C-alpha cells in the first residue's frame, strides 16, 4: 500500500466523521440520532483499522476490537433499548434555531482548524491532517449537548464527544496507552448504564425527559 493513498483514505474517513457530526447536530429524531452514532463508531473503527494495518501497530487492534464491540454494537443497543422502554421511538424534539446552531458549528470548525494547523505542521504522523477534524467533531458534539434539552440526546452527544476524543488520540499519537483506553471504555459503558437508570428516574419525577426541569429542584426550599 502506498503511503499517500493511505493518508487520503484516512483523511476521507476523518471528513466522514465530521459530516456525521454535523448530521447528528441537525438530526431531530432520536432513533436516527442513535443510528448516526453507531455509524460514527463504525467509521472510527474503520479509521483505526486502517492506521493499525498501515503502521503495524499491534496495540491498536485492541482498540479496534473495543470500538467495534462497544460503540457499534453494545452502546447503540443499550440506547435503543432505553428509547423503546421509554416509548420514545417516534420522539422528535425541537432543536431551536437550527441555522444559527449550524453557523456556530461552522465557526467552531474554523476555530479548531486554525488551532490544529500549527500542531499538525509540527507532527510527522500520517494522520496529522485529521487532528483539526477530530477537534471540530469534539466541539460539535459538545455544542449538541448544550443545545439539546432531552436527556437521551444529551447522552448521545456525550458519547459522540468520546468518539471524537478517541479519534483525536488516534490521529495525534496513534492511540492512547492500553490502560487508559480500557479505563475510558469501562467508564463509558458504566456511564451509559447509569444514564439509562437516570432517564427513568428523571421521567418518574418530572413526567418528561426535559432536563430543564432539573433546574427547578433548587428553588423549592
Amino acid at each position, binding site marked *: 500500500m502506498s503511503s499517500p493513498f493511505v493518508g487520503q483514505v484516512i483523511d476521507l474517513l*476523518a471528513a466522514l466523521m465530521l*459530516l456525521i457530526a454535523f448530521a447528528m447536530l441537525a438530526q431531530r429524531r432520536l432513533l436516527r440520532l442513535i443510528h448516526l452514532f453507531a455509524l460514527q463508531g463504525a467509521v472510527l473503527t474503520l479509521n483505526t483499522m486502517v492506521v493499525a494495518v498501515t503502521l503495524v501497530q499491534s496495540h491498536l487492534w485492541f482498540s479496534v476490537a473495543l470500538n467495534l464491540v462497544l460503540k457499534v454494537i453494545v452502546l447503540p443497543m443499550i440506547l435503543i433499548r432505553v428509547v423503546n422502554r421509554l416509548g420514545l421511538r417516534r420522539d422528535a424534539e425541537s432543536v431551536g434555531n437550527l441555522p444559527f446552531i449550524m453557523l456556530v458549528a461552522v465557526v467552531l470548525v474554523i476555530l479548531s482548524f486554525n488551532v490544529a494547523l500549527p500542531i499538525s505542521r509540527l507532527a510527522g504522523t500520517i494522520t496529522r491532517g485529521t487532528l483539526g477534524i477530530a477537534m471540530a467533531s469534539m466541539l460539535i458534539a459538545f455544542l449538541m449537548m448544550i443545545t439539546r434539552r432531552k436527556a437521551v440526546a444529551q447522552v448521545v452527544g456525550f458519547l459522540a464527544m468520546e468518539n471524537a476524543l478517541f479519534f483525536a488520540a488516534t490521529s495525534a499519537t496513534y492511540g492512547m496507552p492500553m490502560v487508559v483506553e480500557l479505563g475510558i471504555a469501562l467508564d463509558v459503558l458504566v456511564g451509559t448504564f447509569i444514564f439509562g437508570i437516570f432517564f427513568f428516574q428523571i421521567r418518574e419525577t418530572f413526567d418528561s425527559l426535559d432536563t430543564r426541569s432539573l433546574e427547578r429542584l433548587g428553588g423549592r426550599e
Partner: protein
Amino acid sequence: MSVSQAVLQLFQGVLAVAVAPLVLGWLNQCRAWLQNRRAPSLLQPYRVLIKLLRKEMVLATNASWLFRLAPYVVFACMVLAGAIVPLVATDLPFARAADVIALVGLFALARVFMALAAMDVGTAFGSLGSRREMLIAALAEPALLMVFFTPALISHSTALTTIVDQFSNGALQIHPSMAFAAVAFVMVLLAENARIPVDNPSTHLELTMVHEAMILEYSGRHLALMDWAHALKLTVYMGIGIALFLPWGMAHPQNWLELPLALAALGVKLALAGAGLALLETLAAKMRIFKVPEFLGMAFMLAVLGMLVHFLVET
C-alpha cells in the same frame, strides 16, 4: 474547432435532449417499484410529450408575449446547458465557452423567465408558485456556487472540462472535501429540480406545489416544452454530478473509439443516479415550505465546510 469536435458537440446536445424523458421515465419506474406500485412504461414521458405536442393550445386572454416566449427561452437554456456539461466527451467547443458559473447563470435565466411567465397571467397560483420558486432559488444558487468552488479550487479551474480531465486522468486521488460537496450537491439537486423533500413533482395540491403551480396555465406544446425542459434540467444536473464526482470513462474528441465506452458508462451512471434519486425520494417525506431555507442553509454550510476541509487537509 475541428469537424469531429463539432459533430461530437452536436451529437451530445441531441443526446441530452433525446435521453432526458427516458431518465425521467426510469426515475418514475424506480419510484413505483420502491413504493409497491405497478410501474408506468419507461417510455411514458415520451408519450405524454407527443400527446401534448399534438393537443390544441389554450391561452389566457390576458397572456402577453412574455407568456408565449417563456417556454422557448426555458427550453433553449436547458438545451444549451445540456451542450455545455460534458456528458460523453470532454473538451467540446461549447464547454470552453461557458464555465460552471456561467452555467449557474443560465439556470437562473431560465428560472427568471419561468417565474415571470407564471406571474404574467395574474392567477393566484402562478404568483404563489413563482414566489416560492424564487425563495428556494435564492438559497439554492449560492449553495450550488459553493459546491462548484471546491472542485474548482482542487483543479484550479472553473471550467467543467478541465475539472473532469483533472479528476479522471491523474492518479487516483481521494479528496475528502468532495464528500461534503457531494452531499451538498445532492441537496441542491433535490431543491432545484422540484424533487420530493422540497417539492412534489406529481401533485396538484395547491398547498404544496411549487413547480407545478408555475406551469399550471400552460397547455399544449408550451406545456410539452416546459415538461421537456424540466426533464432536461434533471438530466443536466445529473450530468454535472457525474462530471464532478464520477468523471471516469469520458471520451476525448480526438478519439472516436472511446465513444461507445463513454456512452455505456454514461448509461450506467445515469441509471444508478436515477435509482439512487428514487430511493432518496421514497425514504424522505415532503417537508414544510418553511423548512426549506433550513435545508438549503445546511447545503450551503456543507459546501463551505468542503472548502474548509480542502484548505486544512489537502494543501
